[in-house]
């Protein structure tokens, strides 16, 4: 390294200390080593690079150095090393750089901007397999002095107590374990299809996943989930479900089968599972009436109307409903504080989601959840595609996705979900907080028919800073956090997220047309508004006392295009706008949401449920890292953010649009 480079490096370290909000300090144990975000993906809009946590082996992976933060990098050469993660103490004991690919990679950063300081990771995929652990932890090192050691002047992503990145295998891949499948007959409504690792006797206690089928379905129709999850170290039990008399009967069956299974491990499968099922880590997955049933089962535990003998409510780490009905309404189809997850197929011709059928609107359950809640919506997927029992897909609409492709999509999403809630796997969260476009693994169906929208809202336990969730302070000029809201967007209305008539036909009077997040006796609220060929804005003041965001990671909100409205149908496609943060000194940083997955997806172009094309309004969550605002305006003071600005119109993205918006909040790491 040249003297000039060293001088620039020293200057950088000094400047980093001055920018203590965004820049990590030089590790005390390794003087001169510079911590930096390095691993990520290039994006077409500012800030032009997304520093992310997780990658999938064989997928895109890049390294970038931001010359605004590290001006010394401009014109520098280095060796790029990807090495297994080590703690600072381990690095101190052995600073040797051991490349995990075939060789370290020579890289050059011409600058002057980050687009020209971005390099692809070459020399073969970075391994993502690490036995049963989901993801392999790595540090990324730029060896600027070419001495194959981590030492003074080098840049490292990963020295702040966590790895620089995680690499996983494609989640649809089978795990390391061979699987044994058995059928068990405990008598009426206690017949079960059970999957577990064949070598379970050597594996200690494994978590339990319970699957509760839907009406007219069969407990042996979930092999695709059972075989997959058991190969990753879960015990999966799919049980006969009493759905005919309704979701409450199904709930009782979920409760009793879970209890019966845990209480009869000494005999089930000849006792092979005895001592190897962890009754403190359980996930419930239900389909259709069974999907409502698992939410009702949790409600029964919460209300104390059912007492389980062999497990407790706190053992239920996740409740996941596949295309659930909503017969029971807000008092009973109610996940309370559970971590709640929802699957919706856009082409579902049974639980249709149409405005004329309240019991068919699965999203009701999501918006009742008070814990961390999320959803995945799959255009073109029918009701029957979620199971493997064959027969009718129960699908209606264009671009129907096959059962086989649906199962791949289910595995891709479900494994990280369980890894996160059951094992706390750090690599998993990216799979449901980043948009599908950002982390679709290699090997997934890549047809243009595969469109995936995801929502993610944090529960109170995660202490999000909610600026406006529209649940209180119902005046349009006041947020739920009590601060001012100003706007120039047209026809802004705040109300329950519920289509009030019986069709999705565009209607000037039904302002919440296409919304199916709540029914008449639900409380979920949000706003809708529009703009037409003119720039418009919507601004949320951050209340005094809540403006220090240094402990937060991202601005999060959910938005949906409003189906069949003229401002939506004028240009079908991802809808784009911009978001700015302003500090008390008036400094602003403004980013396009296009950077984070392309924009807000257009509605699934299904017809029926009135006239026109476009099914229910599908919310998707956009999370914008706060550090990205700092990267484009490094003087932005994250300790004094006083306003969030949403900017719409031809000057900021799409010229026209009609949008639903909800849950404007900041998330912690």
């Amino acid at each position, binding site marked *: 390294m040249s003297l000039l480079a060293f001088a620039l490096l020293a200057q950088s370290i000094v400047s980093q200390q001055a920018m203590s909000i965004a820049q990590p300090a030089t590790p005390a144990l390794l003087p001169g080593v510079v911590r930096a975000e390095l691993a990520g993906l290039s994006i077409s809009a500012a800030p032009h690079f997304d520093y992310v946590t997780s990658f999938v082996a064989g997928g895109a992976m890049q390294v970038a150095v931001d010359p605004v933060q590290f001006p010394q990098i401009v014109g520098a050469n280095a060796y790029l090393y990807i090495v297994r993660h080590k703690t600072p103490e381990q690095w101190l004991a052995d600073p040797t750089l051991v490349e995990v690919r075939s060789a370290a990679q020579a890289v050059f950063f011409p600058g002057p901007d980050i687009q020209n300081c971005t390099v692809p990771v070459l020399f073969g995929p970075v391994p993502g397999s690490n036995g049963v652990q989901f993801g392999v932890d790595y540090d990324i090192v730029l060896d600027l002095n070419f001495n194959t050691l981590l030492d003074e002047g080098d840049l490292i992503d990963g020295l702040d107590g966590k790895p620089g990145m995680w690499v996983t295998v494609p989640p649809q891949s089978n795990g390391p374990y061979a699987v044994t499948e058995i059928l068990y007959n405990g008598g009426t409504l206690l017949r079960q299809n059970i999957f577990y690792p064949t070598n379970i006797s050597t594996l200690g206690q494994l978590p339990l996943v319970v699957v509760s089928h839907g009406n007219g379905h069969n407990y042996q129709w979930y092999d695709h989930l059972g075989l997959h999850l058991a190969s990753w170290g879960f015990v999966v039990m799919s049980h006969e479900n009493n759905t005919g008399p309704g979701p409450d009967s199904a709930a009782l069956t979920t409760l009793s089968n879970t209890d019966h299974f845990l209480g009869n491990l000494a005999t089930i499968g000849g006792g092979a599972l005895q001592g190897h099922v962890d009754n403190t880590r359980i996930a419930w997955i239900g389909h*259709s009436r069974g999907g409502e049933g698992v939410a009702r089962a949790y409600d029964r535990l919460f209300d104390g109307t059912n007492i389980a003998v062999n497990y407790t409510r706190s053992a239920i780490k996740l409740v996941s409903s596949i295309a659930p009905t909503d017969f029971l309404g807000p008092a009973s189809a109610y996940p309370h504080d559970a971590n709640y997850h929802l699957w919706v197929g856009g082409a579902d011709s049974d639980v249709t989601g149409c405005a004329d059928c309240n019991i068919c609107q699965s999203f009701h359950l999501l918006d009742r959840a008070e814990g961390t809640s999320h959803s995945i919506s799959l255009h073109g997927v029918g009701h029957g595609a979620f199971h493997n029992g064959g027969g009718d897909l129960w699908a209606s609409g264009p671009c129907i996705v096959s059962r086989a492709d649906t199962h791949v999509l289910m595995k891709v999403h479900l494994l990280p979900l369980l890894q996160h809630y059951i094992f706390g796997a750090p690599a998993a969260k990216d799979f449901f907080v980043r948009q599908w476009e950002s982390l679709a693994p290699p090997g997934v169906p890549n047809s243009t028919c595969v469109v995936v929208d995801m929502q993610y809202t944090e529960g109170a336990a995660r202490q999000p800073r909610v600026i406006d969730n529209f649940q209180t302070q119902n005046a349009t000029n006041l947020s739920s956090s009590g601060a001012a809201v100003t706007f120039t967007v047209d026809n802004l209305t705040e109300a329950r997220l519920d289509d009030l008539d019986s069709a999705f036909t565009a209607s000037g009077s039904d302002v919440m047309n296409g919304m199916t997040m709540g029914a008449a006796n639900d409380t979920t609220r949000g706003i809708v508004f529009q703009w037409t060929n003119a720039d418009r804005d919507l601004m949320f003041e951050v209340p005094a006392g809540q403006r220090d965001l240094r402990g937060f990671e991202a601005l999060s909100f959910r938005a949906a295009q409003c189906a069949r409205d003229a401002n939506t149908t004028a240009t079908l496609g991802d809808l784009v706008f911009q978001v700015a943060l302003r500090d008390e000194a008036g400094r602003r940083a403004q980013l396009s949401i296009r950077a984070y997955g392309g924009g807000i997806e257009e509605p699934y172009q299904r017809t029926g449920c009135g006239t026109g094309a476009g099914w229910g309004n599908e919310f998707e969550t956009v999370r914008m890292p706060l550090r990205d605002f700092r990267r484009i305006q490094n003087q932005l003071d994250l300790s004094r953010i006083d306003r969030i600005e949403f900017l719409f119109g031809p000057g900021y993205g799409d010229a026209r649009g009609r949008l639903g918006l909800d849950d404007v909040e900041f998330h912690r790491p």
Partner: protein
Amino acid sequence: MKIFTALSVAFVVLAGAGWLAARQDRTPVAVEHPAAPDTSVQNTPVRALLLAQPFELEKPATHHWRAEQPQYLRGWILVLECDPSLLARRQTVEPLLASDGEMLERINEGAKHGRVIAVLPRFETGEPGAPKAFAFVEIERAEAVDAVQALRSFERAGDALRLSAEAWQSARARGGEAIRFEDRTQLEEHCAQLILEHAPEDRAQAEGWLIPR
């Protein structure tokens, strides 16, 4: 009183013999029944009663389709022929089968050929009363209904299949003698055999019920 006692003893002995025979015959064996005569098939949603067999249980079972969740010890095993278009199982509201004022426990889907195996619980003592009519009823919600709702729903149902004495006798003849089961699970295993015989498209369900205990 003596006559009644003697009849009761005789009934118990006969039922016990039937139950023993049933126990011996519980291994899956397809039973040949004569085809339903065309004259018994009506142009109603429930088109015909093909088979009716009385049963008894040693241990009570719960009638889950009734809100009161009553327990029963006897009833009828039925095979019905229905309009297949009404039989596809739905997650949302679907038409339910009822007889007179009582909900049937529908066992299989039968949507391909229209054959449905069902259980009609009876709560009276002695020989279960013969059903008189069958219909599809509309219940607005998927939930167990109470006795009053069940009766009213049945009364509202149009196009009930009203059994003639001839049709009933024919179905009874095909059903054979009363059969006694240890519990609901044995009853289900028997119904699984009927699925294999009358509605083989629902074989997966039957086989799922016939796995060894």
